């Protein structure tokens, strides 16, 4: 069976699903990309059993069949010489011929019989959420960076999606900091009111989501959460860990509030981080007399910088991780940022005036002497 395809389009379909290929696996079948040809479409799928991505391209051949493509095919298409590519599949022995111009590859495909299918929940009867993908992208981006990458506390490898009355919220934390985004929107309700999505999956989803305005459907069925966009189906298994109640971590009233220019603060923190040392990247933050002072002193030298701020409440001094601070400053787009302090040993909370549903909390570094 011969198929003539647009090489660029073919490559981008493969590159989308490639993100779900496992780095290594004890199950050989999933280290391949599934090609499922049915009437009007070529469907490409890959999974690492935690996440599953399917992409699709139009095809007018009218035939059908399934085959596992070796993952090398993605690289082959990256270096392909021509705009058109011919796939020649032998259904008896799963040999594939990939040719175009001077290039001619013979690949060994394999039998797709054992390929897992558990991620398909498109036939779910439940009502999906319908949302603009640009908006979804910015919501996820505003919290996912706070989730933990360490394996020691599995619940914190997830982003918690929860709905309560007409509030839908996303929570991510690594126990040192916490990002929460709340949306007052009743169309945001998933059937089950808690879904703990692996942050890894969320980060991959971010790469797939485009900046253009297009609708996306979110589905939930048992322990699978799926996102359906134009030409791409992205599904992830949910984490089964219980997410701790973090509401107690957020204090009610601030003792000090400052308002300052976000960009200036970001630049200052980035400069301070040049001398901040160790894994804590600690800098000294002092609020005093309508000024914010950022200071570092380390083995390589010291620096200090002053920024004018609008201050409400008492003076305060504490130490914090520059990374944690710059992480939030670089994703916020608003010009002004509000930072609340809660006394000695209390957290810093970053807020945005234009978005009361957002908060980012950072716990300080305790100096022991």
């Amino acid at each position: 069976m011969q198929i003539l395809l647009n090489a660029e389009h073919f490559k981008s379909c493969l590159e989308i699903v490639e993100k779900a290929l496992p780095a290594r696996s004890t199950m050989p079948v999933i280290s391949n990309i599934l090609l499922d040809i049915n009437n009007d479409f070529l469907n490409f799928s890959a999974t690492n059993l935690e996440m599953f991505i399917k992409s699709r391209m139009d095809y007018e051949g009218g035939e059908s069949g399934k085959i596992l493509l070796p993952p090398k095919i993605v690289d082959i298409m990256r270096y392909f010489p021509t705009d058109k590519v011919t796939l020649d599949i032998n259904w008896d022995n799963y040999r594939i011929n990939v040719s175009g111009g001077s290039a001619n590859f013979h690949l060994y495909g394999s039998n797709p019989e054992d390929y897992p299918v558990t991620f398909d929940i498109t036939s779910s009867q439940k009502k999906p959420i319908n949302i603009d993908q640009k908006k979804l992208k910015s919501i996820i981006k505003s919290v996912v960076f706070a989730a933990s990458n360490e394996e020691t506390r599995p619940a914190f490898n997830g982003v918690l999606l929860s709905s309560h009355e007409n509030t839908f919220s996303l929570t991510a934390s690594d126990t040192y900091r916490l990002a929460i985004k709340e949306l007052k929107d009743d169309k945001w309700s998933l059937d089950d009111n808690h879904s703990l999505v692996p942050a890894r999956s969320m980060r991959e989803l971010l790469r797939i989501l485009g900046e253009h305005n297009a609708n996306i459907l979110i589905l939930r069925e048992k322990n699978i959460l799926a996102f359906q966009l134009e030409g791409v189906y992205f599904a992830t298994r949910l984490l089964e860990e219980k997410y701790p109640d973090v509401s107690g971590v957020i204090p009610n009233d601030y003792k000090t509030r400052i308002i300052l220019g976000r960009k200036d603060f970001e630049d200052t923190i980035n400069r301070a981080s040049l001398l901040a040392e160790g894994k804590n990247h600690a800098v000294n933050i002092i609020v005093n007399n309508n000024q914010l002072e950022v200071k570092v002193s380390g083995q390589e030298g010291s620096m200090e910088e002053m920024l004018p701020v609008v201050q409400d409440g008492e003076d305060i001094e504490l130490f914090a991780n520059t990374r944690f601070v710059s992480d939030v400053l670089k994703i916020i787009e608003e010009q002004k940022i509000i930072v609340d302090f809660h006394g000695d040993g209390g957290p810093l909370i970053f807020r945005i005036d234009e978005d009361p549903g957002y908060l980012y909390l950072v716990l300080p570094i305790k100096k022991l002497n």
Partner: protein
Amino acid sequence: MKKNRDILLCDLDAFFASVEQLDNPELRNRPVLVGGSPEGRGVVSTCSYEARKYGVRSAMPMKKALALCPEAVVVRGRMSRYKEVSLEVRKIFERFTPDIEFVSIDEAYLAVNKGFGCDIGNAIHTAVREELDLPISVGISVNKLLAKIACEQAKPNNTGTLWPEEIEGLLWPLSVRALPGIGPVAENNLKIIGIKTVKDLTLYSAESLSRVLGNNAVTIRYYAHGIDDRELELEHEAKSISEETTFPEDIYDREAILAILMELSAGVGYRLRSSGITAKTVTLKLRFKNFKTITRSKTMPDTVCSDSEIYRSVKDLFIVHCGKPPWRLAGVQVSGLEQGSQVSFLQAAHENNRENQLTAARDKLRKKYGSEVIIQGKRLTRRRKKET
């Protein structure tokens, strides 16, 4: 070596013994031996100047030392106390210069501005004597070699100089043993070819000396002329903190080992807290009867600095990796060090405030009265067993 600097070698005299005499006035002016017990494999680690008169030297078996000086008082070493005192001394050094090479717990090289060596040397000597009531000797010169020799000549409890212009008069008459790198064997071999003093060394070419001294000949000949270009090895930030102990006799009892590990954990924890550091990884070290040594580590999700957190990890490691008794040595090490402690809200929720208060109070006591002033009840089991 930077030319515009004077180099000082500060050496606390009979340090461990001096600390014992400081803490126990009844030991003053008496021969004191610090070290292991005479019944076991104990050796003298330090002896007071009073004991040196009897021919007692460091590293001598305790049995032999007591035979030479039967009226000597034998004291078990209290390493954590010595470290505390050493830190106090260090603070005095740091008043005068940031450029310090700490050679050991009782010895350090200091680099100071040229021309200030004598003044600073005397000031350090006075400060240590007046503030800490400890004897210290200071050698002052322009390089490590001459400072070291000046210090040896000045001992005990004094300051001395050995400037380059004094080499002929002061260094050359000394025995070759005064130079680092010449031990009893080399001394003897040199004697055979007629070299006894440092001056004799200068009369021979490096080539002819190399037959006796091997590769060291060139360096030693430079030393004989008072030339030494070794730089000070300034301290880098510690990568780990550890304490270990070799037992006087092999231990068979698991509970006894755990009690020792608790003691070691407390020592490591105290040092962490007193320098404001926390650690992410805890390592257990065990040596068995046959000298086989293992180290096993555990990395925590959050950094730790409390005695109980360190001990808990060490104990977990011990339970899994203890192997077959008897054990010969046990050690506790922490690494993955971090200034300060990033607060986590899980930790904050679990944080046992009472334990924190207890640790803070205990640290204060230890700082004031030494590490033995307050101990965990579990450690008594070991003491009692030792006594019976």
